[in-house]
């Protein structure tokens, strides 16, 4: 009973936050709604007995991703005129909802056919110790691969995010000879 009501509340925040996120016109409001949804999701993880992931979700998804997003939004500081004017937003959302419904139904039906139900979990389920054991016993290779991925992502982010003046310098070098001709 308690579980169901907690589940209901968390689900409310989750779904409500997501819907709000895709509906708001202002970017910051979307970001904050996303924050709410992520927090609710962390709560879901906790409800499912996985304390480690509850913490990990808050640390990464909220603490890193959302914070970074907010930082970028505020750095860019786009004014209202630079925001896209989306006159047909709700029509699009409606149309897309109609298209997405069969996909959702299909996925749900696929999941339902598994006929799984909750059982009593063993001792220490979801704790850091159990996670660590599984992670470093069977999933070492993906773990290492993920670390390489993170490295690549870092390098890529730095490469993409350079200032334009660097490119402008390249342009300058490319057109140097042409400029010489124009001058003479």
């Amino acid at each position: 009973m308690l579980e169901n009501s907690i589940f209901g509340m968390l689900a409310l925040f989750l779904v409500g936050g997501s819907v709000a996120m895709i509906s708001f016109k202002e970017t910051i409001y979307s970001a904050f709604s996303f924050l709410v949804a992520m927090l609710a999701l962390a709560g879901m993880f906790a409800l499912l007995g996985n304390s480690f992931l509850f913490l990990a979700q808050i640390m990464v998804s909220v603490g890193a991703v959302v914070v970074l997003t907010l930082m970028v939004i505020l750095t860019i500081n786009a004014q209202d005129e630079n925001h896209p004017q989306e006159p047909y937003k709700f029509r699009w959302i409606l149309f897309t909802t109609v298209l997405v419904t069969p996909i959702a139904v299909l996925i749900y039906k696929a999941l339902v056919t598994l006929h799984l139900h909750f059982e009593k979990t063993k001792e220490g389920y979801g704790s850091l110790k159990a996670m660590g054991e599984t992670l470093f016993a069977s999933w070492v290779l993906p773990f290492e691969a993920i670390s390489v991925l993170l490295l690549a992502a870092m390098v890529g982010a730095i490469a993409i995010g350079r200032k334009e003046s660097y490119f402008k310098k390249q342009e300058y070098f490319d057109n140097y000879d042409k400029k010489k001709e124009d001058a003479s």
Partner: protein
Amino acid sequence: MIALSLIVILPFFSALILALIYLQNPTKNREKLYAKLALVTPIISTILSFVVAVQLFSSPHDLILHHTLFNWIDVGELHIELAFMADRLTAVMLSFITFIGTLIHIYAIGYMRGDAGYGKFFTYFNLFMGSMLLLILADNPIIMFVGWELVGLSSYLLIGFYHQESQNITAANKAFMVNRIGDFGFIMGLSLLFVVLEGNGYSFSAIEQHIDSVDRGMLALIGGLLFIGAMGKSAQIPLYVWLPDAMAGPTPVSALIHAATMVTAGVYMVARFSFLYIEIPQMGEAIALVGAISALFAAIIASFQDDIKKILAYSTMSQLGYMFIAVGLGAYSSGIFHVFTHAFFKALLFMGAGAVIIALHHEQNIFRMGGLKKELKWVYIPMLIATLAISGIPPFAGFFSKDAILITAFATEHYTIWAMATATAMLTAYYMFRLLFVVFHSAPKSEHNLTKLPSSMTKPLIVLAIGSATAGLLGVGEAYGGTNLFASFLALPDTPIHIEHQTEYLLDSINIILAFIAIFIAYKLFAKHSKYPLQTLPIRSLIVNKFFIDELYSIIFIKPLLLLSRIFGYVIDEKIINNLIFLTVGGYHKSATLFAVLQNSKVRYYALYILIGVSLISITLLKLLGDL
């Protein structure tokens, strides 16, 4: 007998040589060379024809000479050889065609002097000779048809010889097209004949053997269709409209082609197919009726014409009508006899007319001529003989041949045909003497400055005059004590006629009297002062305008055809079909443009397209899984 092939091949060969020499340098004046070359092969053909004729004369009457050149078509049941055959009919036709052809070649050497296309003329002339001989000597109907077409081609080339004037080209086209319409009937007849004979061989002798196996109705149809071809070639109603316009060609052409030879091809064809026409007397009567109507019609028009060559053209059409009366009623020998005599005097008349035209610097209206009796004596006398012959005055040739035909008509109780033919005979005498009197006797309208005529033009006239005078003696009928050498030589399957000698004398006298009356009327009207008679008669303008037949044909046939052509050319082809094609092409363009709209390079839309695809797949899967 190889002479047969040589007779045909040599003119073609010399035409080729002349063409090559002419084309090598068209502008160089080589008249003497062309004249010599052109004359060689007709002379050789004439000699060879006489050899053939003598050979046949001294042999039993059913001897047929053959010569095969090669197998032409050999497809399934169709087996046609390029072969020549000569029986007595062929021999007769050959003799006068080659003889008169040679004379006219000599005449043309003088007539065409000074013309820039001298070499071209003789090329075409020799081509014509070869074609006509091919037609005559053919062993089977297909080869005859090849000759038939080639003669039509030569006629077209020669009519349009003075091609700088567009009306001559129109006349040539008209001749060819009307001929073609006749040829359509001819081809249909030949094809039907081939089908009903069911592959039993296709030469004339083979057809003759198997003719009994064909049902009479089919035979009548074939006979009628073949006669349509003859109608076109020999200018009978309704396919005669090309003959007066064909006078646009040089006079030797008119003399040879449109008087003596090509136009008689139709009559020859009927005589050649006599074994067929014998079986279908009703079709024969129809042919005779068409001939009679054409004869009368042409005679009426000729009485009011004032162009010397057009008078003679209508006269030819009229005489051809006589020939068809004869072969239609089964008197094949009389028909061919009239062809024979007619060739002599008609060629002579045309050549004389050509001489007069040249002498008066290309003047063709008889009412501007006059009083040439003294100055052109050696043209006047032959033409007088020819005019007497054509009017049927004994003892000249026309009397015997024409009266044989009239007797046949009377004796077989076709009195309408006889009446029409007699009326035509009277009119013939009238208009021919009208021509003679106006040109030679009447007072000249103005001073004439005559060009000197070369002897190559006057000598053939004399030869032909002798022929016109005496050729009739070959066919003197029994009533006058002769044995009708001609008919007995030909041995064609004539329908036997029984008529009392008394009746025959009576009818012939009627003809002579009518002819003299006509001559007298013509003399009264024209001999002293030529003027147009009967000016105020309202029917006169109808006749002078040739009964407006040309205009009628134009309205009924030509204008609708042109309209149809214009519709097909400008509306259907240009607008409809082109637009259909453009529609297809444009359709592709438009649909491509439509699809191009989807490619607007906005990522969101592409994501939407992916979503649509996945959505459709999901729906399909849900349906397949059975629980939508």
